[in-house]
C-alpha cells in the first residue's frame, strides 16, 4: 500500500475492539457493511455525556440542560456541514436509516392517490422496499422495479422507460449493501425531477465511504445510520428539502413536536422539531457528530483511495481460489465482496470463518430479491473499512481455503 497516505496501524489503535480475540484468534472484522467499529474518541464522547452533562434538552432552564442542548444542536450543525445541507432544520435526527425511510413513506400516505407510481431499484435492502409496499397498499399506488444487469448495475434505459408523469417517487440506494455497486444517483435524481418525481436515496452504505453533497445532488431525501460510520447504534439522520419536510405531516405525535396543545387542536412545532417527537437519543446524536469529526480528520478522499486499493487486492486474492465467484462486479463499486464457492453453502463457510476469528456476514443480507435474481440462497459477504489491512485479507483468503478443504 505504498500510495496511501493513511497510517493504518496508528488508526487501528483508536479502535479498542480490533485488538481482541475471538475463538482464541485475533479478530479479523470484515462485517463493516453491517456495522462499523467505534473509535475511542466516540466512546469517550458517550462516556463524557453520561458522566458530565446528561440532561433532557430543549426545555430545561438549568445549566445541564442548556449544555446538552448546545452540544446536541452543535452535532446537528456538524451533520449539516458534512452533508452540505442548505439549512440545519433540514437535518432530522432519527434512530437510523430505516426510521428515516418510514418517516417519508408514512408522510407520503397523504400525498398519493390511486394509480400513482413509485419506482424502486432492484437492489434495495428490505428497509427500502417494505415501507413503500406498505405505502402502496395504503394508497393504491403502484410499485414498479428498475431492473439490474448481471454485473449488479441498474439498467438506466429501463429506468427512462419506467419514468412517466405518473411517477411520484423514486427510491434507490446510493450503494448496494449486498453488491457494493455505486449507483448513478446524480442521473437518477435529475431524470426523476424532469418527470416531476421526488427522490429518496438510502445512503446507509455510502455514508462511510463517500461524502454526499445534498445541494449538489439536489436530492429530496437522503438518509443514513451513524453506526455504519464509526458512530453509535440507534441514531441516524434524515435529510429532507425544506419544502418537502413542510409538506409532509408529522410521523409521530408527542412532546417536543408541538407548538400548542389543547384538547380541541394541536399545532405543530417548526422544523426540525415537527419530526422529533419525544426525548431523542441525545447522547447518540452528540456521538454521531464526534464520529463525523473522526472520519473527516482522516479525510474521505484518503479513505476512498485506501479502500479502493484494499478492494482491488482482496478481489485479486479471492479470485485465486478455485470455484470462487464474486457477485456484484459493477465498474463502480465500494469495498464489499459478496461471493460463493461452487458446491458449498455460504452458511458453512461463514461458520468455519467465525471459528477462525474472521467476522463476515452470510445469508441474503436483507436483500432477498437480489439473491432470487442470481438464483442463490445467499452469499458470504466480506465488507472492508479503512482500518482493515492487506494482512487481514490474507487471513480471510487462507480461512476460506481452510473452510473449503473441510467442506468439500
Amino acid at each position, binding site marked *: 500500500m505504498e500510495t496511501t497516505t493513511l497510517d493504518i496501524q496508528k488508526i487501528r489503535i483508536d479502535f479498542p475492539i480490533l485488538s481482541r480475540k475471538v475463538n482464541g484468534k485475533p479478530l479479523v472484522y470484515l462485517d463493516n457493511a453491517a456495522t462499523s467499529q467505534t473509535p475511542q474518541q466516540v466512546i469517550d464522547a458517550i462516556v463524557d455525556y453520561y458522566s458530565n452533562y446528561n440532561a433532557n434538552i430543549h426545555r430545561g432552564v438549568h445549566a445541564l440542560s442548556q449544555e446538552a442542548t448546545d452540544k446536541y444542536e452543535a452535532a446537528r450543525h456538524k451533520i449539516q456541514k458534512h452533508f452540505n445541507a442548505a439549512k440545519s432544520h433540514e437535518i432530522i435526527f432519527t434512530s437510523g436509516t430505516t426510521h428515516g425511510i418510514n418517516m417519508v413513506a408514512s408522510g407520503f400516505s397523504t400525498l398519493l392517490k390511486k394509480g400513482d407510481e413509485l419506482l424502486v431499484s432492484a437492489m434495495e435492502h428490505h428497509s427500502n422496499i417494505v415501507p413503500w409496499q406498505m405505502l402502496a397498499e395504503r394508497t393504491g399506488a403502484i410499485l414498479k422495479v428498475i431492473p439490474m444487469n448481471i454485473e449488479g448495475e441498474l439498467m438506466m434505459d429501463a429506468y427512462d422507460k419506467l419514468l412517466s408523469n405518473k411517477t411520484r417517487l423514486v427510491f434507490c440506494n446510493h450503494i448496494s449493501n449486498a453488491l457494493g455497486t455505486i449507483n448513478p444517483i446524480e442521473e437518477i435524481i435529475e431524470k426523476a425531477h424532469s418527470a416531476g418525481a421526488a427522490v429518496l436515496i438510502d445512503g446507509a452504505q455510502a455514508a462511510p465511504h463517500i461524502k454526499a453533497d445534498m445541494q449538489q445532488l439536489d436530492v429530496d431525501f437522503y438518509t443514513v445510520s451513524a453506526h455504519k460510520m464509526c458512530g453509535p447504534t440507534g441514531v441516524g439522520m434524515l435529510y429532507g428539502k425544506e419544502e418537502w419536510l413542510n409538506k409532509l405531516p408529522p410521523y409521530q405525535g408527542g412532546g417536543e413536536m408541538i407548538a400548542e396543545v389543547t384538547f380541541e387542536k394541536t399545532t405543530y412545532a417548526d422544523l426540525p422539531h415537527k419530526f422529533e417527537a419525544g426525548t431523542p437519543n441525545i447522547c447518540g446524536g452528540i456521538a454521531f457528530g464526534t464520529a463525523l469529526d473522526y472520519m473527516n480528520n482522516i479525510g474521505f478522499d484518503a479513505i476512498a483511495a485506501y479502500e479502493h486499493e484494499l478492494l482491488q487486492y482482496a478481489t485479486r486474492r479471492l479470485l485465486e481460489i478455485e470455484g470462487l465467484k464474486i457477485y456484484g462486479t459493477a465498474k463502480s463499486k465500494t469495498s464489499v465482496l459478496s461471493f460463493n464457492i461452487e458446491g458449498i*453453502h455460504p*452458511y*458453512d463457510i461463514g*461458520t468455519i470463518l467465525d471459528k477462525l476469528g474472521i467476522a463476515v456476514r452470510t445469508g441474503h443480507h436483507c436483500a432477498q430479491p437480489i439473491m432470487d435474481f442470481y438464483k442463490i*440462497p*445467499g452469499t458470504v459477504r466480506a465488507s472492508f473499512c479503512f482500518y482493515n489491512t492487506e494482512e487481514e485479507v490474507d487471513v480471510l483468503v487462507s480461512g476460506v481455503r481452510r473452510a473449503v478443504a473441510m467442506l468439500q
Partner: protein
Amino acid sequence: MEIKEIQQDIVDEFSMFEDWMQRYEYMIELGKSLPLINEKYKTDDNIIKGCQSRVWVHAELEADKLVFTADSDAIITKGIIAILIRSFSNQRPQDIIDADTKFIDEIGLKEHLSPNRANGLVSMIKQLKLYAVAYQTQLN
C-alpha cells in the same frame, strides 16, 4: 436406548476431540449418515423456518415410536440436524417432548444455541418437538 443414553454417547464421542476443527469435521461426518428425507417430502411446508440454510424434516409414526428423516443444503447444518435426529428418532413422542437438549452445550456447539437468527438449532429443536406433540395428540 433412551434419549439420555444416546445423548451421553454423543457427548462421549465428541469429548475425544481436542479442538473445534476435529469436532466440526466429525459433525460433518455425522451429517453424511443422516437418514435422508424422501425427495417427495422436500416441500416448502417441511422447511424449518428460522434457519439461514434450508432444512427439511419429516416425521412418521412407526408403532408407538416417531421416526425422523431430514436433509439440508448446508453440510454443517446437516450435521447438526443429524445429531438431533440421532437423539430423538425411534423414540416415543412423549419422551421427545420431555427430553432436554443440554448435551448440545456439552459437545461444544453452544454458539449454535444463541438467539441470533442466523442459526436455526433452536428452531430445529422446536420443530422436532412440535412433531412429537402432534403425534402424541394422535396417540391419545
